[in-house]
């Protein structure tokens, strides 16, 4: 077992959650209410990581974070380090390729709240914040938990984007998925098999939990 790689993957997944979830929560709620002709385009843009090859997203992210890009130059000036091929760069990339996994379950959860319920909250005198905290969040929490679980598991398993943006630097950007690839290349099938099995079990548990929550969400809505 490559414990440093496992530890790095867990650290990356946690950092991604901390950065992405609040942003996705805000975005998903806005999208759920937004009525505009531009909505399909915005939703399409956010869903691109689902359909594009990871190498394509990785390539664009690498270009955007490279030393010649405004973002890369700004980061280098501010911190003295490069954004590409660093853990911070990996977190930025991870946030981007996880957007659909975080936004979509939460958006569906907010959309499934009966508009009559939200209007009733207003008629009961609740402020926008009170309505969000007391009505929307409790009703949408299974969607949020599902988003968190999916994002976490997807980050653990992501390979293409991580390799493109982070390379393969042990302790800095070498995640468990890349470590498995490395072990296979060096014919260490024992370690590759153990780590693969661990990832498989985590992914299976994730999907099962996610489906269970979706069921619970549906039952809670039946009034």
């Amino acid at each position: 077992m490559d414990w440093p790689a496992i530890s790095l993957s867990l650290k990356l997944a946690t950092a991604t959650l901390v950065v992405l979830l609040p942003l996705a929560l805000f975005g998903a709620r806005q999208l759920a209410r937004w009525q505009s002709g531009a909505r399909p385009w915005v939703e399409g843009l956010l869903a691109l990581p689902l359909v594009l090859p990871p190498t394509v997203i990785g390539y664009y992210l690498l270009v955007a974070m490279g030393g010649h890009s405004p973002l890369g130059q700004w980061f280098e000036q501010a911190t003295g380090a490069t954004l590409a091929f660093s853990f911070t760069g990996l977190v930025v990339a991870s946030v981007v390729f996880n957007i659909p996994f975080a936004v979509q379950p939460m958006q569906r959860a907010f959309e499934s709240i009966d508009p009559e319920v939200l209007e009733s909250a207003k008629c009961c005198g609740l402020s926008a914040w009170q309505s969000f905290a007391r009505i929307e969040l409790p009703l949408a929490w299974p969607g949020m938990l599902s988003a968190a679980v999916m994002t976490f598991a997807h980050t653990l398993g992501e390979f293409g984007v991580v390799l493109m943006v982070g390379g393969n630097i042990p302790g800095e950007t070498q995640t468990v998925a890349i470590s498995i690839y490395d072990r296979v290349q060096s014919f260490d099938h024992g370690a590759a098999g153990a780590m693969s099995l661990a990832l498989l079990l985590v992914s299976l548990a994730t999907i099962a939990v996610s489906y269970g929550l979706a069921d619970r969400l549906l039952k809670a809505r039946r009034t």
Partner: protein
Amino acid sequence: MSLCIEVRHDAPRLDFRAELPEGEITALVGPSGSGKTSLLRALAGLLRPRHAQITLAGEVWDDGEHHLPTRQRPIGFVPQHYGLFPHLTALGNVETSLLAVPGPARRQRALECLDAAHVAECAGRLPRQLSGGQKQRVALARALAREPRLLLLDEPFSAVDRATRKSLYVELRQLHARQPTTMLLVTHDLDEAAQLASHLVLIDAGQTVQAGPTVEVLTRPQSETAARLLDIPNLFGGRLEVHEGRPRLRWGPHRLSIGRLVDGDSACRFAFLPQNVLLVRPDKPWGAHLDNPIDGQVTDVLVLGSEAVVWIEPDGLAGEVLQMRLPTRALDRYRIATGSTVQFSVRAADLIVFTPQ
């Protein structure tokens, strides 16, 4: 002291103007798609119309520039499907509308409201564990908890069975007697409006058709549209004329006396209520039932329990069939059956003549 409403909007189309008496129950009646719910939403501030002038006892809620947000309006709203918060118990639902009240007092007040709505025993249950009638009562308790100055009810009885509806009518009247809030009740059921509301507003295609005390609107429609909305079946065409110096309504070969002046000869539409068609009884050859006597032939009879509906084709008016209602026992007594000949009358005061075309 009243609720003055003037609302204009394009989609859905609204061109509505009415003044509702404060502290009374007013029914808003109209067909599906006539704009009833949209108007209610505009009053709640949930729909922002193109133009709105809404004031309650001088307090401005909407005047084109100023729009009071929903949460600041002193309203209670019971939507069609109750809009209960599915994750909160009945008590939690009521408490949520009392957030301005401090904790312990809030719970006490919420329990009192549930008790007043006869659902105290449901306090700990979630909405999905309640029957339709219980949900309706909880929604009403939640709406009344804030002691609103205007209570908006959007077809609140449409999803409950007949027996529950009857008891809810009584409870709503009792609640209103204890807490005389101005109520606007949207319904398409005229019987419901007649039982609950002291005032009635008819709405069609977003426009006010007629407004006034319920009995007056139900019995004296001011236009053919109002008569149609009130589902008055006896609606016919005739002519207004002056005959031998007296105003008359010419209906085929019949000249009927009417309770209004006539200005020359003109075509008109007129209506009369089925319950105002009187049977001329051979055993009682005097009295009001002899006004405007007309012979006719019974084309159909339908017994509805203690009441019967009789369709009659008046002599000389082929194809025109009127409807009358009378006690079922009268059918045998006066030998009324399909094909029999009868004499009926409509008093001058009961003939409703609409503005000449």
